[in-house]
């Protein structure tokens, strides 16, 4: 298209843009809306079932329609969930919070240090480090499972909190995200001004840089927290002691017995609900951060 026609069409587009939007035929709008509603139902049905099933007794679970309420027994189920097997579920929730909270805090801090340095320092080995990190991301977790177990075993760390936390501390995605953010958001002049004022690099980092990086750090924290909370394979191989298990592993072990012990179904479902709530709350409160995290992670 020549320059002149392009300019002319753009001028015409200005007045037509608002009017065009809703001009799709009614039938098209109907089909598209129905498509979205059907897909939304698909996404929500398992979650709705979980919420409803956690309010039912074992008898109602098997006899009443699953997507509507019957007698409301949520309190009974919650009580039984936290009382089952000497109340070990409470322990699992606390463990999950320790693993996810501690691991996410640590990995966010390390990613902030490393990502900032990669963005703002010029030094030999910088490109090699970035290549190493990017290559490391592509290694499937499968390959790491057994050697990680043997490694932790040789440190004597099997069946400790460290067995789950230490391997979770190095988030390559986090470094990647902070590096992009720091390159764009931390002005060189600010760092140089800090230096002129006689501040040490470490002090500049803690007093000025961290505050500027905060939005990206929230994103890194969010994604680390989620990935550690969801981790299944690592706790499965490094923790034999039930009292150290996170929620996911504990629920899986109960699910294995649920087929022979039908009363366990309502406990597993109620536990699933409790195990999902922290993540849903995080997502709803930090919406803008997960959006930016997903799109920078995938597009850059």
């Amino acid at each position, binding site marked *: *298209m020549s320059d002149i026609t392009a300019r002319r*069409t753009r001028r015409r*587009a200005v007045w*037509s843009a608002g009017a065009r939007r809703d001009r799709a035929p009614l039938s*098209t*709008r109907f089909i*598209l809306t129905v498509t*979205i509603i059907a*897909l*939304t139902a698909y*996404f*929500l*049905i*398992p*979650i709705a*079932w*979980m919420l409803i*099933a956690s309010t039912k007794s074992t008898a109602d679970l*098997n006899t009443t*329609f*699953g997507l509507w309420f019957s007698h409301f027994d949520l309190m009974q189920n919650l009580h039984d969930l936290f009382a089952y097997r000497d109340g070990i579920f409470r322990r699992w929730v606390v463990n999950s919070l320790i693993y996810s909270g501690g691991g996410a805090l640590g990995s966010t801090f390390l990613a902030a*240090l*490393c990502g900032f*340095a990669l963005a*703002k*320092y010029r030094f030999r080995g910088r490109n090699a*480090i970035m290549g190493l990190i990017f290559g*490391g991301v*592509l290694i499937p*977790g*499968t390959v*790491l*499972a*057994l*050697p990680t177990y043997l490694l932790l075993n040789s440190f004597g760390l099997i069946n400790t909190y460290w067995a789950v936390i230490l391997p979770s*501390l*190095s988030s*390559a995605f986090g470094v990647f995200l902070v590096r992009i953010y720091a390159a764009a958001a931390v002005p060189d002049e600010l*760092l*140089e001004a*800090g*230096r002129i004022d006689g501040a*040490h*690099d470490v002090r*500049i980092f803690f007093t000025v840089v961290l505050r500027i990086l905060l939005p990206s750090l929230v994103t890194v924290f969010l994604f680390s927290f989620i990935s550690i909370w*969801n981790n*299944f*394979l690592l706790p499965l191989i490094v923790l034999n002691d039930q009292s150290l298990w996170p929620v*996911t592993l504990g629920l899986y072990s109960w699910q294995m017995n649920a*087929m022979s012990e039908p009363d366990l*179904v309502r406990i597993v*479902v109620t536990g699933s609900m409790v195990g*999902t709530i922290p*993540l*849903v709350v*995080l997502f709803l409160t930090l919406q803008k951060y997960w959006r930016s995290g*997903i*799109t920078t992670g*995938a*597009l850059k």
Partner: protein
Amino acid sequence: MTAPTLHPATRDGRNGAEQAGEPPRLTASRRNKRRFGADWKMAWAFVVPFLALFVVFHLVPVFYALWQSFHGVEKSGGLGFTKPSVIFVGLDNYAEALTDEGFLRSVGRVLLYGVVQVPVMLGLALVMALIFDTAIVRMRSLFQLAAFLPYAVPGIIASILWAFLYLPGVSPVLDLLDGAGAHIDFLAPGSVLWSIANISTWQWTGYNMIIIFAALQAIPRDLFEAARIDGATNWQIAWRIKVPLVAPAILITGLFSVVGTLQLFSEPTVLRTITNNVTYNYTPNMIVYNLAFGSNQPYYSAAVAVVIAIGAFLLSFGFLRVLQRRNPDE
């Protein structure tokens, strides 16, 4: 690393000179102090904490696995009184893996799964992103949130929920299908693979939709208006302009999905608790886990894991090649 030891007076003096508009006379070392980012020792101090953990928990295990894959336990005829010794076995483990029928069948299974599940999931994600991009559907952000919610459910819990939804007696989905006259067994030998595929599709469609949607929103709007003036219909704009322009985003999501497919583990492991039609060697990853922790064959397990990793690399590079062919400039 030394802290700057400038005397306050000196510092003030220099600032004063600068304010007066005189070019500051700096010695070489002072100039270095001003320029941020030249101090390589400082840079390494920032990088090392992350790097050390990354090397220990991401790179060392890889080399350890490689070493293991070329070794094995010497098979002696003794009764086990002597400690078995580890010997170099060359490519024996690999030869065994590549002729192991169970392993090859599991690879075929996940490839079949990937060929169907990845396009279906990305197709759904693309259609949703395109619909949201037209602004025809109201309450867009609410619908997007609903689509994304499954990603917030931990994978194990998602699998447990679907396991119940596949289970006759408990499942309202089966009740509804029965009412409609469709009697489907989600756990039959022929259908359980697709029931697993459904779990991943449910979890990841919204996530991929967000990525494609962001790419769509980044396209300059006047491109569509220009096409419209030239007489293009909405469908033509969608398929001829929007889809080609977001193809890189689709390929990236495809790359992640394919690598994820090869590592399929938790979904089939959970469904195994309710049906025998998911065997212990159903997916390559389940085989690796079982060899290492179930049947105590760590060396062979390492070789199988390396084969999977190489497969993942080859698939990734294949995808990246396609990606580069589309954008020759990059």
